[in-house]
Each structure stands twice: as C-alpha cells, then as structure tokens.
C-alpha cells in the first residue's frame, strides 16, 4: 500500500505497467517490486523445486524470489529481478515457473511430495534404468523445476562493450563510497564511481538517517552532483561491478536507463572493462534471514527491505507489520514504520537482554517459530519463555544480521575471515592486489564509521598513488554500535528455508552432513545451496552455520564456498557484445569483391577473406558445370583469378637474403634479381609450415608470398626468427598484402592478354618462366611475376589496390573476348590437383618435406629452421605416409577427401589403415576424379590398387596409386 507522504518518487508522474496481464500504476522512481507492493501484490513467483508461492524478500540485486520475464519473442528476457527493474511506461512483466497460472500452479503438488524430494533425490532416484535419463527423466525434471525460459531465438537488441581507465575505481556509492570518491576526486585523481542502483546513496536512500542535519538521500544527491561536475570523475549508476580480475582489471555491467534503451541504436547493456590503478570496495552489506518454519511465505521480508520500501518508495508492505530480529538494527524498522504511521504488531528480539524505548508490544528472548498462510502471510507463531503465542500479521520484517558484501575480494582465490563480533565474514586485506575494502563490506556498520573509513582509505590510496589528499570534513551522522547475537535457525517441526531460490531447507543441509557431504563445496553441490541467479547471497552464511553445527565444527573451520565472478548475473549478450552477426569477425574483401558478386559468384570464406567459388554462366545449373568450364577455359584460353589474399611480405635490407636462407629450406641468396623461386618453410620441429614463391626485386629487396591461410602465422614467425634468433640481421619486414591487388592470368593466351594492357609488351625471352619485374599498366606502375599455380603459361600481375577493381574488370573483360574469363576457387583447386600442387590440405601441420616428396629442397649446405628435427629418423622413415596421386579404377568413380586407404583385401579397420585422402576434384581435362593422398610407403607403390573407404559418407572406391602430378609431367606448358 502506498503511504500518503514521503519517498523518493515523483507522484506527479504516473506510470502504467502490467504484471501477468493485469494493468497497474506506479510512480516515476518506483521499481517493479515497489510498484507491486504499492498495489498490494504479494504473490510474485513460484519456487524452483516445490513451486511454493513466493513474494518479494529484498529490495536489491540479491533478490532470490521475485524473478520475472520481460519482453516477447526474440527479445524475451527471463529471470530479471523485480527489485532492480526500473518501472517504465508500458513495462509488461510475467511471473515464472508456474503452470497454468501463478495463483493456481498445478506443479505445487511437488510441495506435497516434499518428503521424497529432499537433497540428492534426483541423484538417487533417476539412476536406473540409464536409458531413461535422457529421454524421460531429464526433460521431466527440467519441465518441473527451473527458472524462466529463453525464447530460443536470436535477440536483435544491441549490447555494447567498452573500456575505461582510472586512477581510483570506487565500487559502491553509499556513504563509504561517496566519501572515498569525493576524497580521491578532490585530490585530482581520475575517479570512476560505480553503483548498481539507479541513484547513488546506498542505504542512505533506504534509511531515515540524517547527515549534517539533512536527509541522508539529499546529502548523497548533493555529493553526487558535486562529483559529476568534476572533469576527473565519472559517476556510473545502474552499473554493477561484477568481477575483479588480474592487474587491476574489473568487469562491470551497465544497464541503460529506460529512456536510453528506447532510443534507436542504443545498447540495452554495456559490459565495461575498467582498468584501475587502485580500487576501493564499498559494496555495503546484505541482510540475512532467520530460518524458521515456512519462513518463505509471501509477506515475510527482510527488515532492511521493509525500511527501504517505507522510506524510499513510500510503500508499506503490510497493514500490520511484525518485526523480528537478533540485532539492534532491526529495531529501526519498527521505528520507521511507526514514523510512517504503519501499525506495528510486535517487535520480537531473540536476545534475552534486548531493550527498546519504542511504544510497541515488545518480546525479548523470543523467536518467531512459524509463519501461517499460504499465498500471503496471515499470522506468525512466537515461541516465548512462557509458550507459543500466535499473532495476526500480514508482514514480517526479519533480520538475522548483516553479511558484509565480500564477494569481489574472493575473485582471485582469496578467502574471507570470520569475525565473531559481527557473526559474519569480512574481507582478507590484500586478497585482490590494489583493492581495499571500506565501510559495511569491511565490517564497519555505523554511518559515521562508513563515512570516516571511506575518506581514510581513499587518503591512503591517494598517498600510494602520489596524490596529496586534501583535508576532508566528515559530516555528522549516527554512530550507533552494532550488537548481534547469532540466530541461524529456530528449532521446531516443519521445513525452515535457507536458500529460497533453490528450495534448500535446514533439513537438507543436515542430511547432506549425515550422508558425509561435509565439505562445504560438496554440501553446496549436493543440496544446490547457493546456486542459480542469486548465488545464495542471503543464505550462504546461515547454511554454513547449519553445516558447521551438523558436523561439530566452528564456522571458520567449515569455511566458505568459492565466490567467483560474476557478482550478479550478466547476460551472455552483454559478455559477447558486438560479436553477433557481422561483428563476429572482421570480413576481408578483395578489391574485386563487388565485381565477383555482380557476376553472380557465390562467395566462400577463406580465413577472414571472402573469395569467389565459381562464376556461373547462363544455362549452368550446378557448380560442377561452371567449374569444369572454367578449368577448360584456363587450359585452352585464359582465365583470371584474384589472388590478392595471398600474404605478401616485403623483406628489405642487407640481412634480407640471410634471413630467407634461414627460414626457407632452400637457398635464396643465390636467386638473381628479377627471378622468382619456390620456397618451403618448416617449423623448428621439422614439419612443413608453409610454402610459396619469393621474388628478388633488388639486391636487398625480396617479396615473399605466403598462402592465404598462413599469412598471419608466417609474419609472426618471421618476426620471431628475426627478433628472437637473429637480431643481428639488418632487415625490415613489412606486410604489403593489402597494398597490392594481384590477379593470376593463366592459360595459353595469357601473354596475348597481358600485351593488350601493358604499356610495353613482353615476350618469352625477356620474361621467361619464373621471371619478375616492374611493369606499367595503362600508366600505372605495377609488378609482373611469371609463376603458375595451374601448370599453364601464367602470370600474376599486381597493381596498387586502388586500381584493383578496375584491373580485374579489365582483365576479365579482355579474357572474355579471347574465349576466357574469370575463374573461382573450385577451378583453381582442380587445376592445382591436376598438377599435384599442394595446399594446406596437404601441409596440414603433420607432414614433413620428406612426406611431400620435397626432401631434396632441404639444403645440406646451410642451417635453416627445422633442419635438425627434419633429419630425425622418425621424420624420414620410409614407412611414413607419403604424398601420392589417386585415380578411381573400379565401378565407383567418386573420390572423397577425408576417406581412408586400405590394402585391397584388408578389412577397413583402424589397425589396417594405410593412409588418407587430402584433396579430390573432378578433372575435366582428364575426364576422371583425381585425388591427392598420403599413403604408407606411397612413392614405392605407384601402380598398386588400393581401396578407399569413406566411413562417414558410406563410399568405397578402388584407386590406382600414381604420381601426384597427373597432367603435363615435364611442365612444358608453364614454360612455353
């Protein structure tokens, strides 16, 4: 119910929203939770396992019960906490985990079956028969137990990631955080102040406290205004710091305000990487429940949350509120309720020596031992020294004490320390390098103490960083001592709840201990205590206390489970922000891309590059028709293929030839200027890394080409060899892949075509096979290389990339007048298979120069990378699989890459494996399928017939083993 006065809400701005289809109204400044309570909605969800009715427990991100789903279709987002959802016009939330409806949930039958559903039930029950697990048990359990559901569709909403850097990161903007930020900012440090709430102030917004005579919330707003006006400060509200990582890196999730989120192009959430020289953790504390019978009934709430609803949102969660606690702080609740004009049924304090000055029925040394009502609280039973009393009440504000929010201090394997005075854990100093805790998260509970500690810790940090802290005046504030006597559970019959979200009871923990799951980590996994979206923020410490008691140990010896990032749930969309669709990886396009698309070519990905697969002509209905035509076009006329994607590395300097001699197996220092040589590059372990041609453009100037796939790896390798092994060499290594657009011009008419565009014609004498040199192309300075990957007379011509598109169109246009045209990767592949040229299908990382028949390319006269290892007996064993050609000779004429080879009569089993097929293609030139393969002792087996078996595709074929060069064995066509 909304109170008539007060609250940090704008009563002039009404906001309409829906919950489970019904229309309600709240005010600007409300959360969904405060608006629901203002509308007297108590039942907001059903529990995970037993489908028990649940209400709002807290007023923050630790909420275990009030989880809702927003949005429809692809934008559906489950498990959002009503307690942190800002109310916005048109917001439509749905409850979860109830069927057919929240009020009538048929699966609540689970609650009646509870005696059978205790800890470990699933593990014990659904063991047998094993086959039923996947088909029956698991789907059934998943349907019955669970949180909200995903839509299963791709979410089109935008999410962002961003980076920020600062001197001091302050985590939490309560009294300690605000004072720390103010102190640091005034000293001139770059400060980032984060708070997960939509406004700063922390508990100051929830309590009726005064600072320097003004309401705490007003003081916080004033300080925040001052901070926001300083150029060295960034105040980030709606931002949860979710993790502490190495070297001062913090993860933080920022939610867009409803207004921002509605704008086009806005990110719904931004995941921040914040790098801070120092961090001050001022995350506050979380209140914990007391376990008693049916303490999960809607209307049983945390005392601090009740104060927050009354003071911040001017909402009373009940008409007749009972307050129950074991500490002084709980008494404030009764005082605030009285001040707001709400009827307080009773104040119950479990401590026998407690006192109060409040004019309310007061029970000391008494305990609430049961809650009554089902969908809403109707009464509580109180165990006093004189017996059981029953009080009619519709809201119970309970407090079992406060747990400092130590989570972030544990993210790098730190463990918190037990503090008996607080009956809770506090951070271990230094657990995160560069992070210091201050305020309630450090066990300092009074407002004055928090303000003082925030300022003091900031001053210490500033001195460390070399700033001079200015004198800070601490505002006047309450400094009441915090006194507590632990009360974890109230004895009695029935189920008393610890972890509301996972339906874990006191009995479950005891049972785990009984069954010898005594380690806290085992207990957690056996009972699910502390799992799911809230990670047991309310319940972990009490569960430890129960386990400690059940195992006869103290709480410190029992220890905590491991707190890991994230502190609060982070959507996968935010973690992977920007990586959807086109953002997944950069797309690299050649300068001929548009022309290829215009020609109808389907593109295939080659690493990050997009390359044309084939260029369909009218009447061609399959890729094979296009591919066959393109192959024959190259063999008979001339074909054009954009080969710009191959890596091109400019190597210059007096040490260039020496470097090449060291990285290639063969020698390049002897290569004449104006010539190109094929080179083979090994890894130091003796296996082939890459191959390609290198041209000598000047005495100290080489141009290396790499395969498309290995361009990055080769660049890395060259840099390593130069910097790490031969820093003495005076050599410059510079990628020029992107500067040059390069096209293969291949076929018997290639020279004729080139002479139509070159400013000065070439002939065989001046430009023989493996020649290279500068050329002018219609007035543009380019380069020409006479190299061939097709086996035909062929050239590669390069011009600066700005002319690439134009060059490609010109070459293709001219080729088409000569009976040729563009060819794609499919034809390129067939052409090279016909010639037995290798690609990374063959040099796949496990093959040696010996395996591919290039052992003679390994120079005996010099050292080179991989030389020593390549000579090891195992790498030149004649029994190794060696590169061979394959031709089908049986009834089946198809070959498939990836198929394995067997002796003709042998069974096709792993033990009999003789090798495997790496590349296949249909050769229109030879009118047969051709394959390249690795076969044991293959070079000695030419002429033998082996059996190819593709177990995956179910294809078998008899193949003749032959030389891998199928076509034009003496290479006359390329030279002629």
């Amino acid at each position, binding site marked *: 119910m909304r109170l008539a006065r007060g609250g940090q809400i704008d009563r002039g701005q009404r906001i309409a929203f829906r919950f489970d289809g019904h229309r309600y109204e709240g005010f600007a400044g409300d959360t969904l939770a405060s608006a629901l309570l203002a509308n007297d909605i108590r039942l907001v969800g059903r529990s995970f396992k037993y489908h028990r009715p649940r209400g709002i427990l807290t007023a923050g991100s630790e909420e275990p019960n009030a989880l809702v789903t927003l949005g429809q279709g692809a934008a559906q987002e489950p498990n959002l906490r009503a307690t942190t959802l800002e109310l916005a016009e048109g917001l439509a939330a749905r409850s979860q985990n109830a069927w057919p409806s929240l009020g009538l949930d048929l699966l609540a039958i689970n609650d009646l079956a509870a005696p059978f559903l205790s800890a470990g039930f699933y593990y014990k029950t659904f063991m047998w028969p094993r086959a039923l697990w996947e088909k029956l048990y698991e789907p059934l359990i998943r349907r019955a137990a669970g949180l909200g559901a995903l839509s299963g569709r791709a979410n089109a909403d935008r999410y962002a990631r961003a980076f920020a850097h600062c001197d001091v990161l302050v985590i939490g903007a309560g009294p300690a955080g605000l004072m720390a930020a103010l102190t640091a900012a005034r000293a001139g440090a770059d400060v980032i102040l984060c708070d997960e709430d939509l406004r700063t102030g922390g508990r100051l917004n929830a309590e009726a406290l005064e600072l320097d005579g003004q309401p705490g919330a007003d003081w916080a707003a004033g300080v925040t205004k001052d901070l926001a006006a300083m150029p060295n400060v960034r105040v980030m509200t709606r931002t949860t710091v979710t993790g502490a990582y190495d070297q001062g890196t913090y993860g933080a999730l920022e939610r867009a305000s409803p207004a921002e989120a509605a704008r086009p*192009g806005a990110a719904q959430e931004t995941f921040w990487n914040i790098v801070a020289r120092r961090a001050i953790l001022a995350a506050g504390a979380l209140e914990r429940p007391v376990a008693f019978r049916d303490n999960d009934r809607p209307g049983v709430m945390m005392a601090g949350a009740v104060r927050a609803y009354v003071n911040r949102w001017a909402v009373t969660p009940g008409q007749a509120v009972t307050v129950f606690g074991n500490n002084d702080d709980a008494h404030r609740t009764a005082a605030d309720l009285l001040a707001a004009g709400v009827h307080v049924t009773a104040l119950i304090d479990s401590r026998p020596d407690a006192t109060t000055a409040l004019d309310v029925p007061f029970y000391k040394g008494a305990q609430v031992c049961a809650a009554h009502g089902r969908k809403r609280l109707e009464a509580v039973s109180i165990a006093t020294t004189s017996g059981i009393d029953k009080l009619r009440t519709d809201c119970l504000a309970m407090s079992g004490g406060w747990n400092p929010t130590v989570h972030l201090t544990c993210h790098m394997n730190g463990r918190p320390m037990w503090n008996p005075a607080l009956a809770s854990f506090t951070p271990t100093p230094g657990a995160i390098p560069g992070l210091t805790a201050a305020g309630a998260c450090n066990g300092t509970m009074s407002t004055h103490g928090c303000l003082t500690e925030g300022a003091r810790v900031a001053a210490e940090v500033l001195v460390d960083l070399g700033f001079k802290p200015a004198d800070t005046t601490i505002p006047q504030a309450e400094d009441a001592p915090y006194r507590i006597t632990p009360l974890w559970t109230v004895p009695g019959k029935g189920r008393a709840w610890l972890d509301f979200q996972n339906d874990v009871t006191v009995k479950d923990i005891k049972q785990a201990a009984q069954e010898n799951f005594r380690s806290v980590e085992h207990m957690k996994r056996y009972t699910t205590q502390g799992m799911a979206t809230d990670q047991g923020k309310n319940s972990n410490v009490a569960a430890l206390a129960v386990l400690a008691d059940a195992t006869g140990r103290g709480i410190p010896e029992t220890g905590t489970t491991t707190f890991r990032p994230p502190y609060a749930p982070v959507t996968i969309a935010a973690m992977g922000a920007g990586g959807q669709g086109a953002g997944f990886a950069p797309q690299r396009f*050649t300068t001929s891309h548009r022309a290829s698309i215009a020609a109808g070519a389907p593109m295939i990905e080659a690493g990050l590059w997009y390359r044309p697969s084939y260029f369909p002509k009218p009447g061609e209905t399959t890729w094979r028709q296009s591919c066959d035509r393109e192959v024959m076009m190259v063999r008979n006329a001339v074909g054009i293929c954009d080969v710009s994607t191959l890596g091109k590395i400019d190597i210059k300097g007096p040490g260039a030839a020496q470097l090449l001699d060291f990285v290639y197996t063969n020698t390049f220092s002897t290569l004449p200027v104006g010539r190109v040589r094929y080179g083979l590059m090994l890894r130091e372990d003796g296996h082939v890394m890459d191959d390609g041609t290198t041209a000598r453009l000047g005495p100290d100037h080489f141009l290396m080409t790499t395969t498309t796939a290995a361009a990055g790896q080769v660049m890395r390798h060259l840099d390593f060899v130069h910097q790490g092994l031969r820093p003495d060499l*005076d050599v410059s290594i510079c990628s*020029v892949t992107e500067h040059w657009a390069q096209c293969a011009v291949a076929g018997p008419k290639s020279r004729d075509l080139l002479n139509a565009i070159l400013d000065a014609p070439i002939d065989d004498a001046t430009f023989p096979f493996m020649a290279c040199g500068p050329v002018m192309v219609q007035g543009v300075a380019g380069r020409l290389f006479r190299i061939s990957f097709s086996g035909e007379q062929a050239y590669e011509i390069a011009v600066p990339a700005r002319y690439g598109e134009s060059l490609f169109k010109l070459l293709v246009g001219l080729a088409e007048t000569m009976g040729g045209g563009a060819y794609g990767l499919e034809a390129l592949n067939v052409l090279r298979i016909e010639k037995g040229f290798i690609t990374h299908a063959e040099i796949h990382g496990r093959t040696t120069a010996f395996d591919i028949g290039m052992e003679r390319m390994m120079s005996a006269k010099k050292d080179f990378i991989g030389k020593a290892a390549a000579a090891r007996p195992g790498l030149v064993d004649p029994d190794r699989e060696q590169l061979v050609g394959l031709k089908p000779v049986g009834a089946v004429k198809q070959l498939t890459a990836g198929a394995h080879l067997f002796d003709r009569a042998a069974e096709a089993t792993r033990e009999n494996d003789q090798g495997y097929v790496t590349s296949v293609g249909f050769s229109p030139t030879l009118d047969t399928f051709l394959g390249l393969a690795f076969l044991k002792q293959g070079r000695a087996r030419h002429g033998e017939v082996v059996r190819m078996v593709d177990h995956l595709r179910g294809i078998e074929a008899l193949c003749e083993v032959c030389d891998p060069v199928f076509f034009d064995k003496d290479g006359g066509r390329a030279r002629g």
Partner: protein
Amino acid sequence: MAEPAKTPALTLTPTTPCGAMLPLRIGTLTLSEVDPGHLTAMAPRQGGALGAALSAAHGLDLPGPGRATGTDAARAIWFGRAHVLLMGPAPDPSLAAQAALTDISDGWAVVRLEGAGAAAVLARLTPIDLRPTVFPPGQTARTEVFHMQAAITRLADDAFLIMVFRSMSQTLVHDLRTAMEGVAARAGD
C-alpha cells in the same frame, strides 16, 4: 545466348577503401574518409640517421614510440617496433639511404572520427587508455579496433585518425557506426 563480349575500355580507374560508405553523420559525430596521400613505411637502417634526413627533406621530427609529428599535409607517425609511417608526401629519395622504404599507400583504410564523444565511441572498440592526460593530441598507438589490427592517432581533443587494413574497411565502418549510434543514444542522459 550471352551477348558477344565487347572489348573493355583500356584504362584503370582508382577507388577508395571506404567509397560511398562515408561520410557518416550521427548525432554530434562525423566519420569521414581521409585521402592520406602517400603512405611509406620507413624502417630505420642500423646505424642510419633517419631523423636528420626526415627533418631535412620533409621538415618532420622523427617520432618516438607512441608519437606522431607534423600536420595534415605531412605527418610522421610511429607505426610499431620497426617502422615510422610517412603520411602525405612521396618520400624524398634521400631517405632511402637511412631507412628501408616500403610503399603501403593503398594498404590501409584511413578514416577520421570527429566530434563531441569521439573518445567515447573509440572506448567501445579499443582497449587502450584514451584519457587526455595519457593520450593527448599527437599521441598514436598500434592497437586493436574491435577485432582488427589498427593504428589510432589523436589529432585533437575530439578528433582521431583511425587506420585498418584496406580489406576490412566495411567492418571498420560497421563497427564505428554501431558505436557512434550507441554513444549518440546516450545523449540527453
């Protein structure tokens, strides 16, 4: 039947890396393509004196790591461990004795991001520290822009020169546009 192929015009025409994708105006921000003129990667030779030659030939100071010198007409931008980038003029022949020179004029897409919030846009794409105290005008970095190798130079408080490989210009514009829209959507908060 396809029409008989016609002989194409024998001429080469240039295109720019970003072409019609730019300029973009979103909120207070503009993204435009820069014609950098010549781009020459200069790798100082061992024992050479590139600084003196660069100063004599082009009036530019040789920048140390992370620095850029010069103006729009001619810049020298530190370009990594081994290289300094000469942007603008064709390299004077005298430089060749002091450094290995490699023409990379066409290898990079060069764009200029300008306007209030430019640093906030880049902060969504690059992990480097862009605070004015750390990365003032005249500062440059080799780093990444989302997944791409990049060079970022701050020209003014609200203006950056951003370079990625030419083939990735479409991704660069996509990523910058997305970030610009996200930052523009924050305006008013």
